[in-house]
């Protein structure tokens, strides 16, 4: 019995850090409407700062806690810089840009942390005076856990006081309800936003710091906690701090008890819990129904139009060039173009989901990697021939998308996005941990195409046919009744439902289709490289796809192709440097800040003359009509 009690208390202890981090994320989103992806990085920085400060000043019992607070303050300072330098300029930009920018921050923080603290996992310092153990009915338990258990409710109470008893807190709550109204009342909005961002960052930093004696500090903390935070926020109900607390406790308890009952299945248990709660209460435990208008809009108001004659000519020229490419360049470049083709199909499938469906997925790599693993597992365990594996892989990815999508389409906007990321992280963890089957981090090797397709030249043409064919298929679907129906659900859910469109079904089928196409790209990938590693399913890979969509612009379907080419080039240039993540992160942030309307938007701006000629008659007609009517 006492074992269970201790396990229960230990679950409560680990809930505290998770709650602190998640509440910060929730507060920041509530007011600024920015999903701060760098929040996991702030948590990680809290742990690293805490480690250093405890060493420098944390001599005695008071010094230790002072050092943790100092770490939180330091992270708050980092948050201040991020808000002032980056986010402040992006509040009005489409959400995709904010996400990409905070993802840039993740990359920067990763390399800065690597440079400052090294690649080794750091063992957390122990809290002076709390190093011992207590016996609870005979079962030992670290005293520090008791301190952690107290920390969660303490911070919860402090936040409650802040938001209910102080003027600033009430303003923050008001801004969460109605930003425009608060601004209209003469509140300095940018000051409020900055304050909220710093507070949220400090909470993340504190969360990272207080778990030091238990979990230490390492470079993988950022993505791990990010997915958990999203689960907490979605399960607890966005914007509800008490809900975040309850969800953090629930998930931590599930983890600690899950280990006792089913050591290998904790992730699956978390998955089931999240699924059950979302089916019963789509808004989370204490969440309120979403108010309309909080969509994760990626800035796709315009629609793709069928290609004009000039555009068709251009596409034909590009295709002709790709066909004769093997004559023009050597094997090295052919392999590079195969990479681009594969990524272009991957990015196009995401672009379809985002532009036509308005569904911003943060976990699209689950299906890219899913397809790659489906093919690799089929070859490894069932000796499936290459051709069949290539055919079955998209089906496998589609099946995975059906399961994940069935839950995700119940939510919309950023909640949808967060849930896709959380599920993708679960999928990644399963592949990473289930090493008996997937070989874990060592990956699956020796997955080569059949002899006839193993030469670079033949494989190049195969990849060309499949990738270009896939992209054309996606384009076809966009202009098919299905694509129109999907666009209708994006444009107006109200009207779509009123004319008999089953919105969730339309979205789910789109999700499965996009997943299957990503899986096809993944299968091509695994056969072009001969191996697959869990990285292909990871959050960074999902962001690569988002980045490609962003780089290429959202205006046309050739966007993802351009994006994939630009991304491959950028990646290949930077990877030769030791701190390539830092450079990539800085590049991303710079691109987003310089072109807050996207590369395509910038191009449109500079080539505006031609486009204006087209746009003018429409505008003039409107004016004339309104004049006549007046």
């Amino acid at each position, binding site marked *: 019995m006492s074992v269970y009690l201790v396990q229960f208390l230990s679950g409560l202890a680990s809930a505290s850090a998770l709650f602190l981090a998640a509440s910060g994320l929730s507060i920041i989103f509530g007011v600024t409407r920015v999903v701060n992806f760098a929040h996991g990085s702030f948590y990680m920085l809290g742990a690293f700062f805490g480690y250093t400060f405890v060493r420098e000043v944390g001599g005695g019992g008071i010094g230790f806690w002072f050092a943790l607070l100092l770490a939180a303050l330091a992270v708050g300072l980092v948050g201040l810089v991020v808000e002032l330098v980056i986010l402040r300029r992006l509040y009005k930009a489409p959400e995709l840009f904010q996400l990409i920018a905070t993802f840039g921050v993740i990359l920067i923080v990763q390399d800065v942390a690597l440079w400052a603290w090294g690649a080794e996992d750091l063992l957390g310092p122990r809290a002076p005076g709390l190093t011992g153990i207590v016996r609870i009915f005979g079962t030992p338990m670290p005293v520090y856990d008791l301190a952690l258990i107290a920390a969660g409710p303490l911070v919860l109470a402090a936040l409650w006081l802040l938001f209910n008893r102080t003027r600033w807190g009430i303003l923050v709550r008001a801004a969460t309800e109605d930003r425009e109204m608060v601004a209209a009342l003469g509140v300095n909005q940018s000051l409020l936003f900055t304050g909220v961002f710093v507070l949220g960052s400090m909470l993340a930093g504190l969360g990272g710091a207080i778990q030091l004696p238990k979990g230490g500090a390492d470079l993988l903390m950022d993505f791990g906690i990010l997915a958990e935070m999203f689960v907490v926020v979605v399960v607890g109900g966005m914007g509800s701090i008490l809900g975040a607390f309850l969800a953090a406790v629930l998930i931590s308890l599930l983890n600690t008890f899950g280990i006792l009952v089913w050591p290998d299945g904790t992730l699956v248990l978390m998955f089931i819990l999240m699924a059950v709660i979302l089916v019963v209460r789509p808004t989370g435990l204490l969440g309120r129904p979403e108010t309309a208008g909080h969509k994760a809009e990626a800035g796709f*108001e*315009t*629609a793709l139009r*069928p290609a004009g004659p000039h555009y068709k000519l251009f596409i034909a020229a590009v295709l002709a060039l790709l066909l004769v490419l093997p004559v023009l360049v050597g094997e090295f470049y052919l392999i590079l173009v195969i990479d681009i083709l594969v990524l272009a199909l991957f990015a196009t499938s995401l672009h379809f989901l985002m532009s036509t469906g308005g569904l911003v997925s943060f976990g699209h790599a689950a299906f890219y990697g899913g397809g790659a693993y489906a093919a690799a597992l089929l070859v490894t365990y069932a000796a499936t021939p290459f051709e069949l594996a290539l055919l079955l892989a998209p089906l496998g990815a589609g099946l995975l998308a059906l399961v994940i999508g069935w839950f995700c389409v119940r939510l919309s906007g950023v909640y949808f996005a967060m849930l896709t990321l959380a599920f993708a992280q679960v999928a990644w963890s399963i592949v990473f941990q289930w090493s008996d089957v997937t070989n874990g981090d060592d990956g699956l090797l020796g997955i080569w195409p059949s002899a006839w397709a193993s030469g670079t030249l033949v494989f190049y043409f195969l990849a060309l046919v499949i990738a270009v064919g896939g992209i054309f298929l996606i384009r*076809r*679907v966009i*202009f*098919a*009744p*299905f*694509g*129109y*129906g999907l*666009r*209708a659900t*994006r*444009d*107006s859910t*109200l*009207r*779509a*439902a*009123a*004319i*008999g*469109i*089953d919105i969730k079904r*339309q979205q789910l*089928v789109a999700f499965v*289709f996009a997943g299957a196409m990503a899986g096809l790209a993944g299968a091509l990938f695994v056969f072009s490289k001969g191996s697959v590693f869990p990285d292909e399913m990871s959050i960074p890979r999902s962001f690569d796809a988002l980045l490609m969509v962003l780089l290429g612009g959202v205006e046309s379907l050739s966007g993802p192709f351009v994006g994939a080419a630009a991304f491959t080039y950028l990646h290949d240039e930077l990877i030769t440097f030791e701190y390539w993540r830092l450079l990539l992160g800085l590049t991303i942030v710079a691109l987003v800040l310089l072109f807050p309307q996207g590369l395509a938007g910038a191009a449109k701006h500079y080539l505006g003359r031609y486009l204006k000629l087209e746009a003018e008659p*429409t505008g003039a*007609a*409107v004016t004339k*009509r*309104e004049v006549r*009517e007046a």
Partner: protein
Amino acid sequence: MSEAAVKPNPAAPSLAVRHLSKAFGGVQAVRDVSFDLGKGELLALIGPNGAGKSTCFNMLNGQIRADSGSVSLAGTELIGRSPADIWRRGVGRTFQITATFPSMTVAENVAMVLMSQRHELFSFLKTAVQRHRKKALELLDLVGMTGQADRPCGVLSYGDLKRVELAVALGNEPSVLLMDEPTAGMAPRERIELMGLAARLVRDLGLSVLFTEHDMDIVFGHADRIIVLSRGELIAEGTAEQIRSNPLVLKTYLGEGQIYGRKEG
């Protein structure tokens, strides 16, 4: 209002609403509302803001689930069905604030309805471009919008959007049309034009229409019959004459005094 007080309509009712109730938390938005919508009738639902008109509408087309009561469409119970299902059974609606697909052209907006009606929305390989264009143009011709068929809905004026909505609502040949404040937010002349057009169309097509409206000229000018909702309850029903002289309606909604010309103390 009890059921006994509902006067049976000479024609068989298209929509028979009985004892409809809905509460939001502690607020009883609609309480025990019963009425018939006769075949081919233009029935106006009026009442002050917050009387429960929109809640009634949303229950009729399935957007809000009623707490209790029944809505029968030619013998079929509608309560508990999804908006999509109810639409397929021939109950169309327009919204108080227009809802169209801004990224699509006017003609495509109408074509969407036709594709949905024909169960084509899970077709992956046919093309939707120019699909059902002829039929869409016919519908647009009814509302006088053929000239703007190829403009995106996102750039239209409000009055034109209302016309497009009308064409969209007629797209699946409904038997019942619910119009939530069809002329809200429009200039006086446009209001008269639009309501005249809508009334003419539904009479030509033999539709039964339930509409809400705050403009009494429109209501008295077009409605065959009027029902009055106040604080969630039906307080009166009758012809324009009867409603105009009903003391309870005057007190709760229409007002007894003049709006213009009275000197404020």
